[in-house]
């Protein structure tokens, strides 16, 4: 008897793991390569290893993960569709760009005040990326949890990567404690869900009919599971760690987690919510609960950002606000499972929900490019471990380093959602879906909040372009020609932001049709 016949999955399925395994492998390479490098020199070889790993993983994802039906593989542990590829590309884009942005960290004039070890940094970033990629294809609550922990532990460690910096350690500790806390809720929710649905597989859960008497249990489980995910994406009231961790972590890590963790967690959330939504475990009440979370998150995120003067804290609150906008899309996606919806079971509603999935995917892609761009600029201005701590340090950047100022402006303008940038298309798409499913109130709130957000984004632009440089500030000593890697990161991010905003179809020339990926993914999911 062939013992392989008893394997729970087809042998060929192992290839489906390639996009997840490649970053981990390259993480190991980066770790060991760093040993051979000059400890105080530039770390561009590591950035190149990082980029190569991400590129290979992205290529593997494009080749292996696609389609509009969803490929279930590895005995049901994973399911891949166009959406997985789209989100994987967003995650890998973030990791690549932040990898470049950090290549020169700690170099530059003046005393070195950083204890960041680049090998560990790149290694952990790639290990975390591996977990993120696993999360966007998870089809099994166990895979799901393992993925989420892989990425979380990497990010906890990364947050405290600058070991001797009290702020960094403090941020890491807070993030870790609260993260462990949220993992508890996540697990509790999963166990309740398993109890109600008798399966760990999401595709089976989606198709199962729940015992009516067990539905409250399933709903509670779903809500607790969601709490764990809402924590990861920084939704109010589970957002408290975000500003402290964003501020405490080294700029590059903040950039990495603001992109990767959010994209991956939203990707995972879409997969879980489809299952719990279809099976009725979430119930209409749960959708309205999410509605409320979205509304509070939008308000609190934007309100909090208004008076921030530390760029990383500003971007932290901005990230919370964006979580809110994205939740609008998530709510719109769930509407097609809403039994009490006035247009329930209509084709139009289903179309709008599919639109919402594709919109969320595209939004995340644009968000990844813009946020990575903003953090790349902040990394570019770091000197010897000294980060940009005040917006006023950017004063006059347009004069001393026009490229950086333009890249920052493009990123902020995209985050604000101004036409001509990826942020605009993403918002347009998501909000249109929201209107389509009848959540007009939420969309109006989000639009008003976006208008408010212009203030704090453009404030930074005004400071960069219209104020005089302060003596000794980051902008005043900006010119340092050797930082080509971070220049590359800024330029690439800004280009991506504009391209995705003006002419997304152009990616077809590279063999990847992003719009098709998104709509395929939506088709596969709903």
């Amino acid at each position, binding site marked *: 008897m062939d013992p392989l016949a008893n394997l729970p999955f087809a042998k060929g399925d192992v290839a489906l793991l390639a996009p997840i395994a490649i970053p981990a492998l390259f993480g190991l390479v980066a770790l060991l390569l760093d040993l051979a490098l000059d400890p105080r020199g530039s770390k561009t070889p590591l950035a190149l290893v990082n980029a190569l790993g991400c590129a290979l993983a992205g290529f593997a994802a494009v080749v292996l993960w696609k389609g509009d039906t969803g490929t279930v593989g590895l005995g049901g542990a994973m399911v891949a569709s166009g959406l997985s590829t789209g989100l994987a590309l967003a995650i890998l884009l973030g990791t690549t760009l932040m990898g470049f942005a950090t290549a020169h960290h700690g170099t530059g004039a003046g005393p070195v005040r950083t204890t960041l070890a680049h090998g560990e940094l790149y290694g952990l970033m790639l290990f975390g990326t591996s977990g993120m990629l696993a999360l966007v294809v998870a089809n099994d609550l166990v895979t799901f949890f393992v993925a989420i922990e892989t990425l979380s532990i990497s990010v906890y460690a990364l947050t405290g990567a600058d070991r001797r910096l009290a702020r960094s350690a403090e941020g890491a*500790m*807070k993030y870790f*404690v*609260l993260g462990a*806390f*949220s993992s508890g*809720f996540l697990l509790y929710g999963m166990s309740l869900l398993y109890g109600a649905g008798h399966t760990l597989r999401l595709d089976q859960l989606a198709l199962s009919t729940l015992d009516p008497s067990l539905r*409250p249990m399933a*709903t*509670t489980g779903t*809500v*607790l599971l*969601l*709490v764990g995910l809402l*924590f990861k994406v920084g939704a*109010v*009231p*589970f957002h*408290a*760690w975000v*500003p*402290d961790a964003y501020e405490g972590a080294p700029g590059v890590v903040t950039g990495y987690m603001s992109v990767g963790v959010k994209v991956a967690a939203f990707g995972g959330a879409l997969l879980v919510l489809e299952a719990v939504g279809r099976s009725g475990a979430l*119930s*209409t*009440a*749960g959708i*309205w*609960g999410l*509605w*409320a*979370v979205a509304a509070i998150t939008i*308000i*609190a995120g934007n*309100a*909090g*950002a*208004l*008076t921030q003067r530390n760029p990383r804290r500003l971007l932290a609150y901005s990230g919370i606000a964006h979580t809110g906008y994205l939740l609008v899309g998530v709510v719109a996606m769930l509407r097609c499972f809403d039994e*009490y*919806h*006035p247009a329930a079971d209509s084709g139009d509603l289903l179309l709008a929900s599919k639109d919402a999935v594709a919109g969320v995917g595209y939004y995340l892609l644009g968000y990844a490019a813009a946020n990575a761009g903003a953090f790349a600029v902040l990394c570019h201005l770091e000197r010897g471990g000294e980060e940009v701590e005040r917006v006023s340090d950017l004063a006059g950047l347009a004069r001393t380093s026009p490229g950086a100022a333009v890249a920052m402006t493009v990123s902020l303008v995209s985050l604000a959602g101004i036409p001509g940038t990826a942020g605009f298309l993403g918002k347009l798409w998501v909000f249109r879906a929201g209107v389509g499913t*009848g*959540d*007009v*109130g*939420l969309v109006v709130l989000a639009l008003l909040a976006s208008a*408010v957000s212009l*203030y704090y984004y453009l404030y930074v632009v005004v400071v960069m372009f219209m104020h005089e440089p302060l003596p000794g500030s980051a902008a005043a000593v900006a010119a340092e020609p050797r930082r080509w890697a971070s220049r590359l990161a800024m330029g690439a991010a800004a280009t991506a932001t504009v391209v995705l905003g003006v*002419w997304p*179809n*152009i990616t*077809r020339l590279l063999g990847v049709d992003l719009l098709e990926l998104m709509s395929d993914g939506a088709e596969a999911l709903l």
Partner: protein
Amino acid sequence: MEAIEIWWIPLVIFAPLAGALLNGLFGKRIGKGFVRLVGVGTPTLAFVLSLAAFFGLFYADYGTSPRAQVVAFRAEGKPEVIRAIKAELERRAAGSLGPEAAWQFRIEDDGEVLRIRNASPEDTILRDLHTRYAGSVEFGPAHEVASPRAYAWNLGEWFAVAGLKVDFSFTVDRLAIVLMLIVTGVGSLIHLYATGYMGHESPGTFARFFTYLNLFLGAMLVLVMGSNLLLLFIGWEGVGLCSYLLIGFGYEDEDNAACGTKAFVVNRIGDLGFVLGMFTLLVAMRGLGAEPSLDFAALNNTLGATPGSLPLLGPACLLLFLGATGKSAQIPLHLWLPDAMAGPTPVSALIHAATMVTAGVYMIARLGAVFTAATVWGVPVLGIVAMIGVLTAFFAGMAALGQDDIKRVLAYSTISQLGYMFVGVGSAAMGAAVFHLVTHAFFKALLFLAAGSVIHACHSQSMREMGGLWRKMPATFWTMLLGAAALAGVPLLSGFFSKDFILFNALVRFNSTNSSPLWGFIYALGVITGLVTAVYSTRMICLTFFGEYRGHGRPHESPSSMVGPLVVLAILTVLGGLLGLPKLWTHKEELLPGEWLGPMWPFIEERLAGNMPADLHSLESMGLAIGSVAAVAGVLVGVVFWGRRHPSEIAWESRQTGALARARAVLANAWYYDLVVNKWGFQPATKFLAGLLWRNVDDAAIDRGLVDGTGRVAVQLSLFVRSFQNGQVARYAGYFVLGVLLLTTSVAIFSVPSVLHTVQRLLGS
């Protein structure tokens, strides 16, 4: 029309755009040599590609030699017949050693046409086949039987909203290729000229100039090659932007910047009309029950082919025409073009004479079928277009008589000549208008560049400070003389043929059945304007080149990079007439306007058929005679009055008081139109409105109420949100638990059906 996909079509646009990018990014750093190479090289590349496209189009319809012609079979509505013919011919050609072995077949136009390359209409096999299918099948040279070939390339979908799908797609058909050759050809010459003209500038300024100039070419090519009205509009806005940037090129001088702003603002009024017109067209299409589209083919084939008149079509076309009056400087929006002369002279030549300002004419020609079908209260829109055109031509031509600044003479002359082009399109003679557009591009570019050469030498734009230059700058003199003669309409030069062809068409309209007597007025005023044109052209030459030199310094001939383009353009100015020799002489269709462009507007021909006057020949000979007499008379008047005399000896130039001086002041100020409209109408109105809005709306309601108020609320809210963030992890965990409790309880409460219904009523829609 049958469009073949050719991938390199967008390269024509990308070449100058890439040039702009290179010069903009690196030009300043690398230096002038690089800028020169890129700035002239990329338009030349675009020109070469355009030439290739032209020959492709030409050979596709006419064949490469008498032995390798292109023939076609056409069977309306019977593709099966065409298929049968093709099968038969392929069978015959298969094993053959005769000329039929080289045949290449292609079925097009929804299967109704079979095009055969390398064949001859005399071929017996083909003729036999034609006889066999006689009655149901047409046969002959492809340019007579098949619809003209076009090239296209679609870069991808731009957006699709509410059933409207717009692509980034470009089409090169017979009309577009004419404009492309002009834009890239004349454009390359002017770029070359500009390397000399701007040679003294600093590397940064030099690079900036060529960046803008190349960007302009790219935008102009988008305008010309776009397959839909929206792409045309993008190009339209792009050239407007470049025009603004280049008029205000010397922005250190506030006057220049103000002139740029004026051009920009006036054009915005027109653009508003354009956009509204575009929307109205879409509504009109929906009204027909057709799928909304902005593709020219769709617009012309649905709106233009609808018999009778759609109610919305007239207003839509009038709005589009308002856009055209802005871009092409026609009454009532003509006032910006003379001020646009603040830009460097190559800019005036390229943008404000040869290319951009003709965009309005091109747009109407593109939408020829739509415009022909449009009426407002029974008045054909094209009649309005022609009337506006001829009025503009006359008033601007008169104004040119009163100018001292040589560039302003040419500016008013351009407005006047554009007026002629609108008379052309207004007479439904789109080909005639495009023909004049082409010859005008040659001779007006030549005149501007020659004037630039003179200005370069004299360091002044005033003709009062010139004179006697013909010995000092012989090349400039002779070329400019040819240009001015062409402008004046001296017989046998290009301007003569194109202008008279337009006026001949107006005359034909006048003599058509059901014609309005107003066409007689249009024709008469057109002829009078021709006379005026000849007078001011002669005046300009006399004041500039004859008599004694009245300026400062020692003028000398310009460098060869400037003279070279002048010579080329002068040759084109002389020979340009060959493109449209009158039918009277050749007994064939006019080359460019008839033979080449005629098939572009089949609907117009159908609409006009039956209205044509019987004896076109005698009309044409009469038109030519009248035109020649007017031009020669004008030149004679000019020579008699101005000749070699000093301006102070000429009453028109020197009188300070009296009726003559007052008349001259009226013309010098262009009928005081600018003063009346701008100073007494526009500015007080905006001041009043601005005051009203600023004090009551902006300051009180928005600033103090909305902005400050919301600002205060927002800041309080922000501080409230921040107050939760006290840094203690235990507190954060507390929020977390509280959040979980709130979320779970609220979900539980929402599960109560009555609560759920309330929530749904309050928050859903």
